[in-house]
């Protein structure tokens, strides 16, 4: 490209300027001598000829300047000198520069860190060969494909291979004399060959291999202590030996995305899978879809499935980046996206508040320099040039602020990277700086430069030459202070929005922490048991042993763990028929099978009837307990105890009690229905949670319970935690949001109050003489007080009015993140926010007011 070549030519000039000058000198000499020689030949004397030739050539100096300018890139050289000048200006006032850079850095650091996390969680490309040609095959709304259907598609041989994986599996790892629960992703033997997921050590799983495993880097490091002989090592998983053949690299990103990181991949019948296909070279998703359609029709015929119609609901989804999100939209992604978007916006607002402060400072400085600028303009300096020079200063600040922000980002992301987020799901994010982050920061730096610098630069250079040159031209005039006031009002307004958001999330956290879940988590422990060799016997003995431990008040098994979306309640929705009558009620409810002491352990009162007793055993008449919501829904205000409830399949159960409502799946749910049945009367499953209430602090008992249960059966994986610790994960989103938003809101408020302080102080300084005159003419301290506080009051009131109006609209969509007890538009919030702001604004007014009151007319009038 011609332009690039030209720029390249010009750049190369920068590095050989002195050689250029030398060569030009020589060329001139040659030219003049050649002309002189010619003149000599035409008869002139040698001396005259040289003189004439020189004269003809004209000024060599001018010629050289013109020639040089052909090569120069003026703007680069100008920029360099502007930056030098700006650096000197900043060094003269280091405290100010540091404050500006620091506040920018904090905002930018927070903002880019959230950007990094969101980018990694939502847009990262999974580790595999050629992600473009790998697609996920599913039917709308259902990603899980039974193995029979998977095999049918595989036998059609239409693509370059199919692979299946099941991420949601728990495997028991027997290590020594006890077992641990691991997140094991089960895969088909084609999984690694088809996806081409790279391994760091050893080799991937190959076709036809059974009972082999590939472990993740984290598992190898933490659980296998980085065993150098890990390859070939045997892991006993669900009582069967598996050979480790490979270790994944540290930055392995799973196909499932969202930072999901299992402990290992193993070949074992997955039951149902997420289905991936490798498209042949050059085949588009659309073409693949067309190829697959007819086969899906056959599939529907051969394996009729009530849950899906392949031929109608087939969809092929990209496995990474934007494509997946677009197709995924409507699934669980939207709230996550909205959550990150909110954090990015909030932190961006903080950056803007910081910008407003810097802008205000630069404006003040530019106005005090307006005389200098006016002189330069009157001497012929172009306005463009001056604006650029003033912009250089804000550019330098922006660059330094962004760099410091990036350092903060690196530090934060490094400490967050690989951190196992305390949720039941194995989620870890690998956060690395990359080009996207760099580009994003460059944009921020650019925006910050303009946001901080443009206004002051334009304003300062617009001041007419005449006015500024006059004595007293240092006075800024109403326009400058009007601009700064507008900036402060803007800051105050957005601080109100930030504060409202922060306060909402803080209340949300308090609400969530006070844990109105309807059960009592203090002094309770949950031990999860997975895969004992003889479940019924194990559960019976386990309960007996637990009851024997001194210090334990009560213990009960249960199948579901409240507030845990992944190990959660069954959600049957078949019709219920009260009194086994003809009336059918179709309703979705939470189902849990619990032992007799469950309600005692959980502190859930039985409001009517009784709790379960040991007599509600297998073989005895079936009993159930309803929660209040369901009892009311089915029986109205009549007493349900003693009545019969018919479940689908004509199973009749007698209602023996009504339990108080509590939360079941999420803290945010409202009016949830629930049915409890006796643990002993339900089909035995391979796992259970033991809920234990202790007399003293639960922490000391955790180990004891864990050992007791583990000792019963080395095959069973036991995980024991206090309930408080367990529910930490349920509160994590609220905590994170409250922490970030709270911190950002406070930081924003601080910046805004500094802005207010700065403007008031500055205007007090500007008005020193005026105040002096007023005092000399008999103004009382009360008058001066009114004057300064009046200005503050006007600013704060305007900012507050705008901010509150904005906040009322802005917080509305937040309800999706909040527990129902916290209403985004609760007037109390706004009142509280307004009070906080008024308080802080009041504090910011104190110093400038005191200064105004101290003005001594004698001194002030001599001033200047």
């Amino acid at each position, binding site marked *: 490209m*011609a332009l690039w070549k030209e720029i390249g*030519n010009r750049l190369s000039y920068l590095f050989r300027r002195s050689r250029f000058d030398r060569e030009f000198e020589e*060329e001139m000499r040659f030219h003049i001598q*050649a002309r002189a020689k010619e003149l000599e030949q035409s008869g002139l004397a040698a001396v005259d000829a040289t003189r004439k030739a020189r004269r003809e*050539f004209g000024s060599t100096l001018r010629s050289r300047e013109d020639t040089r300018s052909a090569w120069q890139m003026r703007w680069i050289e100008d920029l360099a000198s502007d930056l030098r000048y700006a650096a000197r200006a900043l060094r003269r006032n280091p405290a100010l520069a540091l404050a500006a850079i620091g506040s920018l850095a904090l905002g930018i650091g927070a903002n880019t860190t959230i950007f990094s996390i969101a980018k990694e969680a939502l847009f990262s490309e999974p580790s595999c060969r050629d992600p473009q040609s790998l697609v996920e095959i599913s039917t709308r709304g259902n990603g899980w494909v039974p193995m029979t259907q998977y095999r049918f598609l595989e036998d059609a041989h239409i693509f370059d291979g199919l692979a299946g994986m099941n991420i949601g599996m728990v495997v028991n790892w027997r290590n020594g004399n006890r077992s641990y629960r691991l997140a094991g992703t089960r895969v088909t033997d084609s999984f690694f060959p088809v996806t081409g997921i790279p391994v760091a050590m050893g080799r991937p799983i190959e076709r036809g291999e059974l009972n082999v495993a590939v472990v993740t880097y984290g598992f190898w490091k933490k659980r296998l202590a980085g065993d150098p002989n890990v390859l070939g090592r045997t892991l006993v998983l669900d009582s069967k030996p598996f050979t480790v053949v490979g270790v994944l690299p540290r930055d392995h990103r799973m196909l499932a995305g969202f930072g999901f990181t299992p402990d290992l991949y193993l070949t074992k019948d997955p039951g149902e899978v997420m289905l991936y296909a490798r498209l042949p070279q050059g085949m588009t998703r659309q073409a693949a879809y067309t190829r697959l359609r007819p086969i899906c029709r056959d599939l529907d015929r051969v394996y009729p499935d009530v849950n899906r119609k392949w031929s109608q609901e087939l969809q092929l989804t990209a496995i990474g980046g934007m494509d997946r999100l677009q197709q995924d939209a409507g699934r669980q992604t939207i709230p996550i996206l909205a959550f990150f978007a909110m954090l990015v916006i909030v932190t961006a607002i903080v950056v803007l508040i910081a910008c407003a402060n810097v802008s205000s400072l630069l404006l003040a400085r530019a106005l005090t320099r307006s005389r200098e600028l006016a002189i330069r303009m009157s001497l012929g300096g172009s306005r463009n040039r001056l604006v650029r020079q003033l912009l250089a200063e804000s550019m330098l600040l922006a660059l330094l602020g962004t760099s410091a922000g990036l350092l903060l980002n690196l530090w934060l992301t490094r400490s967050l990277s690989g951190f196992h987020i305390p949720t039941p799901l194995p989620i870890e994010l690998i956060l690395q700086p990359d080009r996207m982050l760099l580009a994003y920061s460059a944009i921020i730096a650019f925006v910050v430069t303009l946001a901080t610098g443009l206004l002051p630069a334009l304003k300062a250079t617009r001041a007419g030459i005449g006015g500024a040159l006059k004595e007293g031209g240092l006075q800024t005039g109403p326009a400058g202070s009007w601009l700064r006031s507008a900036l402060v009002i803007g800051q105050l307004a957005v601080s109100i929005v930030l504060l409202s958001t922060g306060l909402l999330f803080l209340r949300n956290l308090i609400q969530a922490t006070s844990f109105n879940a309807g059960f009592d988590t203090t002094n309770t422990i949950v031990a999860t048991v997975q895969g004992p060799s003889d479940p019924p016997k194990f559960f019976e003995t386990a309960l007996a042993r637990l009851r024997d431990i001194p210090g334990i008040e009560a213990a009960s098994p249960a199948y579901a763990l409240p507030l845990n979306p992944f190990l959660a309640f069954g959600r049957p929705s078949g019709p219920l028929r009260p009194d086994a009558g003809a009336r059918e009620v179709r309703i979705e409810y939470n189902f849990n099978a619990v032992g007799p002491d469950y309600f005692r352990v959980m502190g859930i009162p039985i409001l009517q009837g009784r709790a379960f007793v040991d007599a509600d055993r297998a073989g005895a008449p079936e009993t159930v307990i309803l929660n209040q919501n369901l009892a009311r829904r089915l029986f109205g205000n009549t007493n349900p105890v003693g009545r019969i409830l018919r479940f689908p399949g004509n199973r009749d159960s007698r209602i023996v009690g009504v339990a108080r409502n509590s939360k079941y799946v999420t803290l945010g749910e409202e009016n949830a229905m629930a049915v409890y049945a006796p643990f002993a009367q339900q089909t035995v499953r391979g796992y259970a949670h033991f809920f234990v209430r202790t007399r003293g602090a639960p922490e000391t008992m955790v180990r004891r319970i864990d050992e007791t249960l583990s000792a019963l059966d080395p095959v069973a994986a036991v995980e024991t935690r206090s309930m408080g610790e367990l529910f930490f994960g349920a509160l994590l989103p609220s905590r994170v949001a409250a922490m970030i938003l709270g911190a950002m809101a406070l930081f924003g408020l601080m910046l805004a109050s500094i802005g207010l302080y700065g403007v008031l102080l500055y205007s007090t300084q500007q008005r020193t003489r005026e105040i002096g005159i007023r005092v000399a003419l008999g103004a009382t301290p009360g008058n001066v007080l009114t004057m300064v506080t009046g200005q503050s009051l006007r600013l704060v009131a305007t900012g507050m009015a705008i901010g509150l109006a904005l906040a009322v609209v802005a917080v509305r969509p937040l309800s999706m993140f909040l527990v129902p007890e916290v209403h985004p538009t609760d007037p109390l919030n706004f009142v509280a926010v307004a009070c906080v702001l008024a308080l802080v604004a009041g504090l910011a007014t104190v110093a400038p007011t005191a200064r105004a009151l101290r003005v001594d007319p004698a001194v002030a009038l001599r001033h200047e």
Partner: protein
Amino acid sequence: MEPNSSPELLPGTLYLLILRTLSHGPLHGYAIVKRIKEASREGLQVEDGSLYPALNRMLVKGWLAAEWGVSENNRKARFYRLTPEGRRQLDKEAGEFDRLVRAIQLVMRTA
């Protein structure tokens, strides 16, 4: 003819003249001035002071390349030659110039 009396160059035509002059082979700066003067039968005089800035601007644009060589009277001189890009530029500008001159002549004759 005195240099001052030579008609001023139309703006932009200096590049064209230099390109054309160099199309027969490399020349040094002084030779370029001389060749233009001769070819125009003294009708065009390129100012020495504006020759070198123009040459350098053309170097920057990549139309010309320069290298040091030895002049006809055995002195070290800087020779300029057309690059392929310069040749393309010459074709383009020559065509445009022809059209312009013809258009001006048309106007002069008919209007």
